[in-house]
């Protein structure tokens, strides 16, 4: 990194808020994905003005800037693929306003999801899209990747809650999008353009989020199925039964045997376990809904149906789902955590296809997923030190993507494109769509300084 640029950056943020120490470069070289490259430096801005000055400098000297939240992403979205500096937004972490009257919260991008949840709880409110990484992930990152979570089927994803943004553009100018209103059709919807843009168009410095009243109670049940097909059909039928569960999760046989082996949960050895949760304001309401779901499960040959009668029992039912992430991580050295998503009616076909792909490529795929919204998580578990195994894992991923697209689905339901799926953009999007996206990128960032190399925009 050139001394003059380093000096200029230090002048903007202060000497203590710039680093090119080796330990920092290494810690900023990756996220939760397999991708890795050290940046040339990192900055910790505290204000929108500083962000603006840094981008101005970068634009002038044409060096890449990679905005970063907590680095919990799974797609390599914050890896400095083309060098440059990481702009760590974690220190802009104030909750600026909570207005229950207006049903919104205004936050800086570095606020951690759980930090907002804690602040909203005393008011009886919550911010529904809850990624599994919520205790570490920042809201800026959630917005930039349009994060989802377990509650997607009922509550949608991050995009459904962003009312407005403050964004610094690559030339340093500050853009305000949206409003604090629940409704607005004034002008282009620039807010949505930035949600999920993975730091390629601008740096988010303030977020206006819609918040929801938190349902006071919930009911839960679990059921085992002897065939994946029955489980998938049951899920599809639940989603057209008139009841919308607040969570509807599946664990396949690979997940079940791993849980029994490593966590001694004593789960039934079936082809799939489906967990459902309903939420609401009275036990009658949530109980009624869960009973309807149990009816559907029964009609689809479910066995070992368990209904939680207390908070303790609910916790026990969900223990399997909550432990699975860690259990899978421990199975081998590498895991490609995919998140292909298909229309709900195609879930049975996709689940079957995932199994076939695993067999075809001789790789272990453990699948779980938020099936209420068609979002599958086939996790390809392998030992990356073995080149043959790595290659088979990568090939299996290719096939997963192809199948999802064939079924009218999408490459990614919630993790994002980043580096991991950049090469697959043409598989899902037409030449016209990609051209439009890359023209939008050029309009905002003609010098390609913001998070270059991501999303397959460089055509």
């Amino acid at each position: 990194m050139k001394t003059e640029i380093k000096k200029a950056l230090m002048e903007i943020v202060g000497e203590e808020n710039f680093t090119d120490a080796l330990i920092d470069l290494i810690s900023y070289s990756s996220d939760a994905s397999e991708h890795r490259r050290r940046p040339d430096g990192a900055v910790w801005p505290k204000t929108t003005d500083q962000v603006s000055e840094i981008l101005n400098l970068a634009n002038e000297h044409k060096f890449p800037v990679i905005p970063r939240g907590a680095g919990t992403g799974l797609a390599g979205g914050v890896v400095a693929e083309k060098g440059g500096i990481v702009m760590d937004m974690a220190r802009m972490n104030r909750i600026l306003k909570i207005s229950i009257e207006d049903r919104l919260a205004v936050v800086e991008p570095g606020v951690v999801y759980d930090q907002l949840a804690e602040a909203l709880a005393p008011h009886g409110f919550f911010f529904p899209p809850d990624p599994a990484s919520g205790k570490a992930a920042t809201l800026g990152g959630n917005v930039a990747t349009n994060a989802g979570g377990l509650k997607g089927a009922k509550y949608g994803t991050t995009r459904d809650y962003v009312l407005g943004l403050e964004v610094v553009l690559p030339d340093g100018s500050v853009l305000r999008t949206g409003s604090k209103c629940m409704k607005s059709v004034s002008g282009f919807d620039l807010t949505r353009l930035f949600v999920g843009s993975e730091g390629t168009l601008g740096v988010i410095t303030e977020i206006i989020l819609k918040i929801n009243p938190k349902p006071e109670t919930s009911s839960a049940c679990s059921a085992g199925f002897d065939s994946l097909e029955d489980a998938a059909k049951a899920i599809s039928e639940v989603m057209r039964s008139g009841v919308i569960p607040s969570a509807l999760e599946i664990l396949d046989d690979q997940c079940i045997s791993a849980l029994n082996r490593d966590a001694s949960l004593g789960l039934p050895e079936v082809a799939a376990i489906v967990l459902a949760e309903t939420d609401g304001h009275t036990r009658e309401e949530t109980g009624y809904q869960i009973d309807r779901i149990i009816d559907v499960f029964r009609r689809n040959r479910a066995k070992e149906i368990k209904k939680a009668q207390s908070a303790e029992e609910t916790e026990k039912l969900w223990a399997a789902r909550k432990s699975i992430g860690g259990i899978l991580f421990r199975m081998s050295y590498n895991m490609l955590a995919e998140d292909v998503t298909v229309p709900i009616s195609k879930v049975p076909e996709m689940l079957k296809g995932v199994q076939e792909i695993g067999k075809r490529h001789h790789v272990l795929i453990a699948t779980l997923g938020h099936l209420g919204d068609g979002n599958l998580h086939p996790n390809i578990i392998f030992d990356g030190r073995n080149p043959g195994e790595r290659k088979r894992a990568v090939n299996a991923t290719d096939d997963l993507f192809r199948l999802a697209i064939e079924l009218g689905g999408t490459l990614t339901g919630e993790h994002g494109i980043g580096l991991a799926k950049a090469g697959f953009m043409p598989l899902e999007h037409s030449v016209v769509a990609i051209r439009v996206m890359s023209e939008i990128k050029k309009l905002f960032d003609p010098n390609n300084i913001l998070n270059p190399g991501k999303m397959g925009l460089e055509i």
Partner: protein
Amino acid sequence: MEHGNPFLKEEYCEQILKCSECGFCQATCPLFLVTLRPAYNTRGKMMVLKEVIDGTLALSQDLAETFYACTACQACTYFCPSGVKAHEIIEEVRKELYEEGCAPLSLLALGDSISKTGNVFGSDREQGVDIYPPPLRDKVKTGAMKKRAETLLFMGCLPSFMDMKIIPSFIQVMDAGEVDYTTLGTEEGCCGFPLYLLGSDGFDSHAKKVLERIKETGARQLVTPCAGCYKTFKHLYSEIGDMGLEIYHSVQHMEKLITERRIHFDREVAKKVTYHDPCDLGRACMVFEEPRNVLKSIPGVEYVEMTKNRLDARCCGGGGGMQAFKPDLAVAVAAERVRDALEVGADVIVSACPACKDNLRKGARSIPKQERGEIKIMDMAELIAKALKQ
């Protein structure tokens, strides 16, 4: 598969490679939460080690900072989805860094003090008993102290040299319970824990000497008010040799005195009290309930629990050598812990570790008076002594 790594055990290499870099440790690392610097979090450390195992990077002075920037609180280990025992790995790496001459100077100075004077502060051994209650002090000075007793009270460096209240209160409670005890007096030296934290190979030989001195007392049990000493005797000495006596922390022993009705309370302590779990007693030794039982048995005490407690307790920030290596950060973490107590309306934070007490006091002082109010930090023995029947 074998790894080419010369200093890390195979099982640790396996764990490091299995770190999925999910970053969930950021939510638990007390240092990360005040610095928001990923290099100070566990994931950053594991990323460095992956490169060391790969052979693309060699351990060096440049890398040492990340491994010494750790309070050794073990929180990351308990909440790691990938099952990485990070605190054990960091201990191993520190040993290697020490051997390679890469340990930070501020910590090496601690090691020097211990080897020169026997205590971390480099103080004159004779002064270690100045804080004893006068009759006991006189016994030590005139050589009238019992050579042998059933119980050996091991005071620890901090209570002996830096704290005005812990030892007098502790002795007061032991006397009230008519415990048959002796102390090592001016012969008591550091347990060696700081040497271990530093990664020094001098720990073993130091520990052997301390062990001999302890055995000379013929005591059947050792009781210490220091969580660090307790963990060291309980876990680390067992690898050096057979101690031949039971190890108790003072809170465990005092709980026993209460349940056996050997001490009685007749004074109320009308305070809202919370308990801070020292990492070396809590996560490291799983002692969680005894201190809470003691507090709840003191008349007048209204016990309140902090949101982060037991396994989930926030470290005070003073462990792992941080008070010497990065004192400002140690205090910044302590301030957060004091805020945890303020949040639940506590008047008093009781700790069972002199280092936590010292660091929490510094943390409290760093918080503006109007925010911290009248909050006090006390050792368990001090609170018990206040309620003792006169």
